[in-house]
């Protein structure tokens, strides 16, 4: 717009710069604190120039929280959730949009309702399911009397038990069991022209072929965006991994932060704590910074 507003522009720039400083300041403090030794980091005010002990702090934090193993766990966990979400939402949306079977509206609603209650709200019973993932099915057998019948005729007492605690499946599956991506795909599929299916059918492609050769390549951008968001989201997840894993070798990096939090009674090793914080927060930060456009677009599109 051709318009001279110099004074206002200066005010704007000052405000924007302030916003920038506030956004970056915590990152800056974490990075600086991670380079000091125990004495300097506890000085008041804290020195704002870097110290020389970054490597020492880094390796202390690394060994204390065993971040090597935990970062690997985090990567497996976040990749698992992202892959699971991308794949399962795609086939569900495909089923709802491209097939005409009865009950698909019901399925749509069943999936839709899951958006309303986040995991945190139903955390206690979900944990009970993870402790024995077959308990819902056991209960069904018990209530319907099937387990009684089996016990009566074969003498075998049915006791289904399969625990998911301290396993990758236990970490990943409950976080995949929501509908976030399904709607993204569904919306996208509805924008694809009907002629596409007609043409594919005419060329003799069945549903599997159409899905693999047309839908997947066309959805590439959506898949990438969903994948990025889900990866970052899962990486940052805390409550669920905290509950499901108790074995230190199965824990993820975010939960590993608990090992570097300074206790009230111990030394205030903030330098080590900040080095640990840096290790945990850098991977998602790098991903978001590198895939900025994809991340922002995906976020707006899923409106999560």
């Amino acid at each position, binding site marked *: 717009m051709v318009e001279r507003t110099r004074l206002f522009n200066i005010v704007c*720039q000052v405000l924007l710069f302030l916003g920038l400083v506030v956004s970056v300041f915590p990152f800056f*403090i974490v990075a600086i604190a991670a380079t000091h030794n125990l004495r300097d980091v*506890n000085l008041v005010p804290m020195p704002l120039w870097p110290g020389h002990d970054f490597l020492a702090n880094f390796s202390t934090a690394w060994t204390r929280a065993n971040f090597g193993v935990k970062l690997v766990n985090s990567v497996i966990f976040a990749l698992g959730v992202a892959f699971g979400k991308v794949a399962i939402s795609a086939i569900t949306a495909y089923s709802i949009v491209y097939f005409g079977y009865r009950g698909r509206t019901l399925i749509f609603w069943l999936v839709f309702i899951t958006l309303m209650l*986040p995991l945190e709200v139903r*955390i206690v019973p979900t944990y009970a399911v993870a402790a024995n993932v077959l308990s819902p099915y056991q209960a069904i057998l018990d209530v319907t009397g099937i387990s009684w019948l089996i016990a009566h005729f074969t003498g075998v007492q049915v006791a289904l038990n399969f625990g998911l605690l301290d396993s990758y499946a236990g970490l990943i599956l409950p976080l995949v069991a929501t509908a976030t991506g*399904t709607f993204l795909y569904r919306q996208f599929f509805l924008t694809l022209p009907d002629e596409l299916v007609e043409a594919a059918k005419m060329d003799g492609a069945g549903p599997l072929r159409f899905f693999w050769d047309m839908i997947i390549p066309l959805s590439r951008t959506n898949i990438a965006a969903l994948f990025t968001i889900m990866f970052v*989201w899962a990486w940052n997840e805390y409550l669920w991994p905290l509950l499901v894993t108790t074995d230190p070798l199965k824990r993820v990096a975010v939960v590993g932060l*608990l090992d570097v939090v300074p206790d009230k009674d111990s030394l205030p090793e903030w330098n080590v704590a900040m080095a640990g914080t840096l290790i945990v927060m850098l991977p998602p930060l790098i991903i978001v910074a590198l895939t900025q456009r994809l991340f922002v677009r*995906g976020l707006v599109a*899923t409106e999560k």
Partner: protein
Amino acid sequence: MSPEAISARAENSVSPSSAFVTGDALPRAGDPADAPKIARNTSGPPAKNKGRAPRSGDKRAVFRNNWLGFAFAIPQLLLIFTFFYWPASQAIYWAFTLQGPWGGGSEFVGLDNIKAVVTDPVYWDSVVRSLVFAAVSTGLSMGIALVMALLVDRELAGNKIYRSVLVWPYAIAAPALGLAFRFMLAPQAGVLAFVNHIWPGIWDPTINGNEALGAIIFAFAWKYVGYNFIFMLAALQGIPRSLLEAGAMDGARPLRRMVDIQIPLLTPTLFFLLVLNITDSFQDSFGIVDIMTGGGPARATNLMVYKIYFDGFKGLDYSGAAAQSIILMLLVIALTFIQFRYVERRVHYT
């Protein structure tokens, strides 16, 4: 943050996904000739969707192989049955029975659990604290994000840098940022400790409950500025440039255009974000509270989800935790419905 909570709302605003598909960045409604089209893409829902509940797709040409189609939906159905519907119904069942810890027997007690919860002053204290947390942190982060988004939308020099850096805080895990803020706001070390050198004992969130609540509010708001900024900027860019130009022709200066044109046109987005921030403040606060304050001092930061976790897993009071879960579920569902009612009457300007 939890994506699922909220993409519920995705359904009613078809808008951004179509822009999303084109492979371009967020469209800029620059060219007046383009304006109506772009406005339709990025503002409210298209008219045809108005007042209609979400429904499954209406493709003309569909595949006949129904069993295969159903099979495609089975993995999702199994997952949501096992990890969503079953636990949700368990919560309801537990809320009306007395559960022994470690799965020992259960006894039907009717409304006793709920009664025990709602007559407990500690619970109400937690509710009030959660609401204060939700209101203040939402107001703070949305206010700052609105100013930032309006200014970035003016596309001054350095626009690109602001656009990416302001988003970064949202990429940080709640516990990590909790630890960072715990250090920065600690009474003896960090950034704010200097005030105690000037006025000894004026700042100590480990003793003063209100200061602790303030600290977690600040940390949460800092993260969500990035989040709100993304949505507000996307919405601002969907406003047809021609409207702003018309305003400029009529002699409205930039500030006046913001107040009289952009902010009113932003109201649907603002309302949507308001509900979203409040529901997120119930869930995403857990990591911050757990690392920064542990619910203390003297339960001053014992927010609702934290209390459920604490009563259920530390106190082994499954029935009490389930009753609290039910109340929280109702609250979240109510907020979602308000959202839907409003979204259907969303203001738009094409």
